[in-house]
């Protein structure tokens, strides 16, 4: 009797468990009016969910990506600057004052009009809060009159309009900030406004009915944070999200052959690179750095570890840009492990104590290699660590969720990092940020007076051809002694359900949700 009871109970529990595994019932019942009345909701799964005050660090990327904010100018698919909230701009003869005409009829999410005064206030708020923006915009003063804004720069700034495309330059209504956390509820001009925002979990957005660019297609937009890329892939596969951004490159093959999904891809200026910490003893030797560069199998990393989404490069910039052509950087070594071994030997790196690792000056060659969890970076770094160990270098690998603290502490020899090198369609921002002495992104502590002088010239040069020439020269100097190693540029992709429209991967990686984004019918 007891046995039978146990069996029945076990069967009931099994049934319960199985029913929990069955597909969930549709959450929305069909409306009597038919499909046309069905609310258009859209769930966008992202692996890196950021707060969205555009002036705060890099949070503006989220503001743009989620369709909340907009900038005065934007970059087209060829990285050319085109007007967005502005209609156009003119430059004074002394090359110091830019007069920007604003688009008529643009309203903020609270109904206030976006006019010259509002843009002035927004830009002033930005340069007060964001050091990077202040140094790139070089704004001396701003004057506003009606629908025009006149920006006078402290020195001729040929890339002002490019810098105004940067996500940090999203225009916000400063008058609405009193008591409101703009990192959660910024008042901008985009097609969607934030209804609720739970950091690192999800954000719920609603359409902005008075959007200047037409009525947004969605009734409800959810941005869902799924930081584990494998979980994100599963969420995409089981239909939990309508589109996913930031998926691992390993998952490309899962979606490419499946007609339930479509993939949008674009070649981007996102480069995967190595920073050598030039403060560390072995890293101060250019020959040693060159040998490390020769151990990087860029081609295989791009083809195999990134499923073909990585294009090997010698330059920081993609070959589509005039200053990114690999042919200009002939001195940068190719993958040559045997050459690397010979170079190390030639420069006195030998295994004198027979422990299997090289040493020099009685010191074992030990490297601490760090990276963080961006798709493809850990894999490339692990393969590199293995290649270094093959060379006889005792390389230890560490991966961080957030690497900024480790980089600030300086406790590393080699760091694999990823940057968008032309975020505003110009070379200056990246070169200055990563190669300028003491600059925030100069994680290798690189400093070269020649490069400094060229950066200063690049900062004020208006001639496009000369700008390109300076960009090439700066890279040549930095690459001549292997102070940097650029591995590959990335084709980025988003996966979405078949039939999703108005969503495509942009070459600059920060234009995603638009007023036209719509789910599958």
């Amino acid at each position, binding site marked *: 009797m007891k046995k039978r009871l146990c069996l029945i109970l076990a069967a009931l529990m099994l049934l319960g468990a199985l029913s929990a595994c069955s597909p969930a019932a549709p959450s929305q019942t069909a409306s009597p009016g038919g499909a046309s009345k069905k609310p258009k909701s859209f769930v966008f799964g992202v692996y890196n969910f950021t707060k969205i005050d555009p002036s705060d660090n890099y949070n503006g990327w989220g503001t743009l990506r989620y369709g909340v904010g907009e900038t005065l100018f934007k970059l087209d698919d060829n990285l050319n600057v085109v007007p967005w909230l502005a209609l156009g701009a003119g430059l004074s003869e002394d090359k110091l004052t830019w007069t920007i005409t604003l688009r008529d009829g643009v309203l903020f999410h609270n109904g206030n009009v976006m006019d010259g005064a509002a843009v002035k206030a927004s830009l002033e708020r930005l340069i007060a809060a964001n050091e990077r923006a202040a140094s790139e915009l070089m704004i001396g003063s701003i004057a506003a009159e009606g629908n025009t804004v006149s920006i006078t720069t402290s020195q001729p700034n040929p890339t002002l309009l490019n810098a105004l495309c940067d996500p940090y330059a999203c225009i916000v209504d400063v008058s609405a900030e009193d008591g409101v956390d703009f990192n959660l509820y910024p008042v901008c001009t985009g097609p969607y406004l934030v209804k609720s925002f739970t950091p690192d979990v999800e954000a719920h957005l609603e359409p902005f009915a008075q959007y200047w660019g037409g009525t947004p297609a969605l009734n409800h937009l959810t941005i869902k944070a799924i930081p584990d890329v*494998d979980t994100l892939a599963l969420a995409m596969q089981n239909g939990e999200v309508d589109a996913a951004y930031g998926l691992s490159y390993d998952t490309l*093959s899962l979606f490419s052959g499946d007609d339930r999904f479509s993939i949008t891809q674009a070649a981007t200026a996102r480069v995967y690179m190595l920073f050598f910490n030039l403060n560390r003893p072995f890293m101060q030797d250019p020959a040693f750095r060159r040998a490390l560069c020769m151990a990087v199998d860029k081609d*295989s*990393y791009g083809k*195999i570890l990134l499923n073909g989404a990585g294009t090997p490069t010698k330059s920081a910039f993609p070959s589509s840009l005039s200053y990114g052509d690999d042919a200009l950087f002939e001195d940068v070594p190719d993958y040559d492990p045997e050459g690397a071994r010979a170079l190390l030997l030639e420069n006195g790196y030998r295994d004198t104590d027979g422990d299997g690792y090289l040493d020099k000056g009685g010191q074992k060659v030990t490297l601490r290699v760090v990276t963080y969890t961006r798709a493809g970076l850990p*894999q490339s770094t*692990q393969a590199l660590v293995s290649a270094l160990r093959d060379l006889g270098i005792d390389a230890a*690998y560490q991966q961080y969720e957030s690497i900024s603290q480790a980089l600030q502490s300086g406790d590393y020899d080699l760091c694999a990092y990823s940057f968008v090198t032309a975020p505003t369609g110009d070379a200056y921002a990246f070169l200055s940020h990563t190669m300028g002495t003491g600059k925030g992104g100069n994680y290798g502590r690189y400093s070269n007076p020649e490069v400094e002088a060229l950066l200063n010239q690049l900062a004020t040069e208006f001639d496009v051809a000369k700008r390109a020439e300076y960009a090439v020269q700066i890279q040549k100097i930095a690459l001549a002694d292997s102070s940097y190693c650029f591995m590959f540029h990335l084709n980025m992709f988003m996966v979405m359900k078949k039939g999703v429209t108005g969503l495509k991967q942009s070459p600059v990686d920060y234009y995603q949700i638009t007023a036209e984004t719509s789910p599958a019918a």
Partner: protein
Amino acid sequence: MTRNRRFGRVRLILLLTLAALLCLLCLIGPELAPNDPYKVNLLQAKQPPSEKFPLGTDGFGRCVLSRILVGARTSVFSALLVVGITLTVGCVIGTLCGYFGGAVDTIFMRLVDIFLAFPGMVLALAVAGMLGTGLGNAVIALAATGWPQYARLARSYVLTLREENFVYAARLNGQSTWSILLRHILPNALRPLIVTASLSIGGTILGLAGLSFLGLGALPPAAEWGSMLSDGRGLMQQAPWIVLYPGLTIFLTVVLFNLLGDSVRDALAPADDTHLFRKVRPRFKKKGTPTL
């Protein structure tokens, strides 16, 4: 001997043999590995099981079988080390607390209470998180959180044992405190502790693999079963063998040690009385009844 006990003994011998074979495999694993477990060869990445790679290759083209064989030493011996440390530390603290009592006992037992109030794995995660990544730190984290159960168990047995007549007899016989602890108390308290330790080996292997899976244990490219699972989980659908075989290895090893623990417990259980453990006869009894 009853039939059940005879079967239990055969099972124990069988499981002990298998465990010994596993330990032997851990020792000679690197010699048995058909390929270099650390050799990255991207051209051979994600290959299904074949003659050259019997269990396939991982996302870096490394032989899965070779990595399992080499990782066995790390995974199993690290777990045995954790159990050894926790057993020793817990046993010493518990015995001293139980025998001497007083302030030391109160302080340690409150500390034990605090440790036992948290789920073990959560506490280990916190400790490993504070210490940083690395297999050594993972071992320390698990050891730091594992000793209280042994301390509590040892103390409870010592509390009972110290009131036993043979302990009084030893005292009256003029034996020193350390001699009583080592010769009369510890041998009697050790048996339940060994049973607990043998039962926790499997759990510790899982714990270590779990920490490695979460990136707090063995560092890449070290071959360790948990980190192999972690490395391969992104390819679970495209190349299932990368996670299937390390997972299966962990499963079988944990089952083996759990069954072994059960058998040890059965074998050490008293057959003739209802006490939790059978007392080790004090040696002086052999010489005759002590003079009281």
